[in-house]
């Protein structure tokens, strides 16, 4: 029986038709994947279901009865909860307050604090999350925040749970426990809509899938009749023969002789312990490990963002002291951060201004901008990375995640670096754009760039890295060549926590 049916849903935004007469139906107790590239209309459909947007036309039926969802509160009352891609926690409130925000337990007209923390503790324990409910949300890592979001949804009387990129920042073991929990929920009769760019997750977890493309319904399929390649082809609308092949010969025939960056004895109190490694010219070196293993912190130390206790750095044999990002840029280092919106983009500025912001020195003379040169530089990178935007004058926030990422990569390539530090370069972007970015990374390596990549996705690491350093609790636990990469070995190295 269909628990939720959406019929002929259309939604238009100025200039684009986000959804065009889309049908969507959920069977009770299934895990249903919603598939499509960025801009296909997945998020819009989700937002209509959860009351963030209202549809222009179409009907929504819950258990056969037509309902209206005018705002998020309506959705919650109908038992529809969303865990969204964009986290929405209040940083200065505790985990418990965040979970029960808007419905704090009351006792004689005031908040029942001890009851609140008890209940929150219970919710967290139920989903197997080891967090203190008193902790402020702002102190949590991205992964932990996501877990709190899940706890928040679970603490409500939810019939339909929408999970939008819920695992995008989780480590393999965290994902595994989330899956286990998701299946438990399914057994209890919950219906789940699952959006993820990770194909393996879809096929592991979901029974059926609805594929969207450019706001239109392509079809509804069972997972059994599908394969990752088939789905991707439906999503992109093209044949993608080599999309999922992994050509290891490319990695075997390469050898490196020129050290570009060498890091010796990097220490940061409580975070990094005696990190030493070498990054070669033309090499893609992966940094793998669990959340909190010190991967991002290593990049930040090299880029001069955080204060470090000790450490020596050499670029092409010359000593380099990471005092500030400016210094790093002068020495040919670029840093593509994990959180695009928070640390990368200037949302109110145009696409073009976002692209050139790190190369204003080369585009100006005596402080005055050379706008001709600026436009031609922008156009260069638009075609080189095939950035899709109506014009370089539109605001960068109007672009899809993949295109925003391309703008940021363009920004740093335009600054003419030798070393690229990339933190989760494909996080939250769709399959097609992901593949483009992988190809780009490989091409850049061929051109001689040295690239240090942090990634939580093992398939991604396998696909792009010549060599991987495994980090564990602020230390380097091991180093593997591309052909030695094996999920089990890596997982073991990443989580040998208790043993030492």
């Amino acid at each position, binding site marked *: 029986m269909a628990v939720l049916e959406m019929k002929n849903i259309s939604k*238009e935004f*100025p200039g684009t*038709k986000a959804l065009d007469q889309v049908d969507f139906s959920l069977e009770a107790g299934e895990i249903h994947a919603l598939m499509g590239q960025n801009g296909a209309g997945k998020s819009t459909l989700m937002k209509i279901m959860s009351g963030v947007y209202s549809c222009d036309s179409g009907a929504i039926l819950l258990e056969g009865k037509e309902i209206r969802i005018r705002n998020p509160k309506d959705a919650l009352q109908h038992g529809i909860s969303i865990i969204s891609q964009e986290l929405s926690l209040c940083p200065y409130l505790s985990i418990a307050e965040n979970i029960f925000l808007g419905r704090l337990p009351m006792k004689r007209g005031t908040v029942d604090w001890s009851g609140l923390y008890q209940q929150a503790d219970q919710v967290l324990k139920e989903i197997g999350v080891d967090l203190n409910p008193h902790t402020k949300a702002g102190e949590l890592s991205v992964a932990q925040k996501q877990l709190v979001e899940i706890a928040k949804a679970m603490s409500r009387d939810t019939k339909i749970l929408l999970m939008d990129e819920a695992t995008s920042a989780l480590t393999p073991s965290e994902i595994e426990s989330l899956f286990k929990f998701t299946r438990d929920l399914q057994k209890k009769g919950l219906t789940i809509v699952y959006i993820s760019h990770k194909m393996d997750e879809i096929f592991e977890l979901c029974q059926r899938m609805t594929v969207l493309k450019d706001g239109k319904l392509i079809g509804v399929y069972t997972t059994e009749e599908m394969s990752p390649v088939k789905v991707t082809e439906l999503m992109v609308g093209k044949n993608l023969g080599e999309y999922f092949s992994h050509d290891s010969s490319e990695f075997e025939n390469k050898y490196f002789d020129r050290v570009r960056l060498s890091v010796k004895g990097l220490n940061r109190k409580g975070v990094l312990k005696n990190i030493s490694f070498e990054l070669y010219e033309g090499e893609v070196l992966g940094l793998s490990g669990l959340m909190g293993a010190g991967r991002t912190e290593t990049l930040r130390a090299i*880029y001069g*963002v955080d204060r470090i206790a000790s450490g020596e750095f050499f670029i092409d044999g010359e000593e380099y002291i990471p005092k*500030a*990002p*400016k210094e*790093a*840029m002068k020495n040919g280092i670029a*840093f593509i*951060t994990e959180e695009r919106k*928070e*640390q*990368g*983009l*200037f*949302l*109110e*500025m145009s696409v073009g*201004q976002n692209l050139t*912001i*790190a190369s*204003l*020195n080369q*585009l*100006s003379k005596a*402080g*005055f*901008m050379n*706008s001709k040169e600026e436009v031609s530089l922008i156009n260069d990178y638009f075609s080189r990375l095939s950035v899709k935007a109506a014009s370089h004058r539109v605001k960068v926030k109007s672009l899809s995640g993949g295109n925003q990422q391309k703008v940021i990569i363009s*920004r740093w390539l335009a600054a003419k670096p030798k070393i690229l530090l990339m933190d989760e370069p494909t996080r939250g972007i769709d399959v097609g754009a992901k593949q483009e970015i992988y190809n780009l990374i490989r091409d850049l390596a061929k051109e001689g760039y040295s690239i240090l990549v942090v990634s939580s996705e093992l398939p991604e690491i396998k696909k792009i890295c010549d060599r991987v350093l495994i980090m564990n609790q602020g230390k380097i636990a091991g180093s593997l060549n591309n052909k030695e990469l094996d999920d089990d070995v890596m997982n073991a190295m990443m989580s040998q926590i208790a043993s030492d």
Partner: protein
Amino acid sequence: MTEQKSKFNFFSFYERYGLFIILAVMLFCFGIINPNFLSKNNLLNILRQISIYGIMASGMTVVLLCGEIDLTPGALVAFSGVIIAMCVSNGMNMFLAAVIGVLVAGAVGALNGFFTMQFKLPSMLVTLGFQFMIRGIGYVITDGKPVYGLPKSFETLGGGYIVGIPIPIICLVIVAVIFIIFLKYTKYGRYYYAVGGNKEAANLCGISPKTVVISAMIISAMCSGFSGVIWASRLASGQPTVGLTYEMQVIAAVVIGGTSLTGGEGNVARSYIGAIILGVLYNGLNLIGVNPYWQQVATGGIIIAAITLDSLNRINRK
């Protein structure tokens, strides 16, 4: 789809022409009620009245662009005026005195910026504190009394004309041209938008938010100092009491012009239109004989209307 394109969109229309339409309607209405309003003399008078606000609004725009605020302008107008008057009446060359006045103001701006960034304080509170201090020091060194004894020639800057145009207006035009070029065509201009838009991202792009904010505060304070010079010249004295709440008028002008208080978005040319709208409103209401108390009510109404339309426009764009 084609239907939608041809559909008139009030908000995008307002975004582009709204300020000019408001201004035109005001000029038209006041002109009909009192024909004297549109006389050349009166229009020049309005421009002269807004010239010092316009100069201060230039600096304030830069400060708001980087997401900060400056509450010292009014106090600095009085303070730099007093300093210049004291220097000149003690026999100092008046050009040198004017430079000193502007530089002293700039130093206060540097302190504003330094405290804000070094100790991560809200600029609203830091500049509020300095507003009191500066105003107070002005009273202390003058004993609260105006400083007179300035040569007649000193009054030229505020009261003189060049080819029939009051010199303060010429000063404003020069300042306006410099700021429009500075913000639009130099890389430094871009820095203010970047820092106001996303401090963390700016830092990672090698743009130091600290330097940028401190420079914005210095620019704003120097604009106030320069306005103080003009004002002292107009008044032919250094008055420690002038400039009360000027910063509020200036912020109002900038905000009417559409610069966002949260930083990263705005346009200095529109701040001047904002200043002109306020100037026209005061002058027009005066000329048609509206009770000054009602003038305040009208000013408030204009501010609320402008920021509401601006915000609706922003919501509509999403």
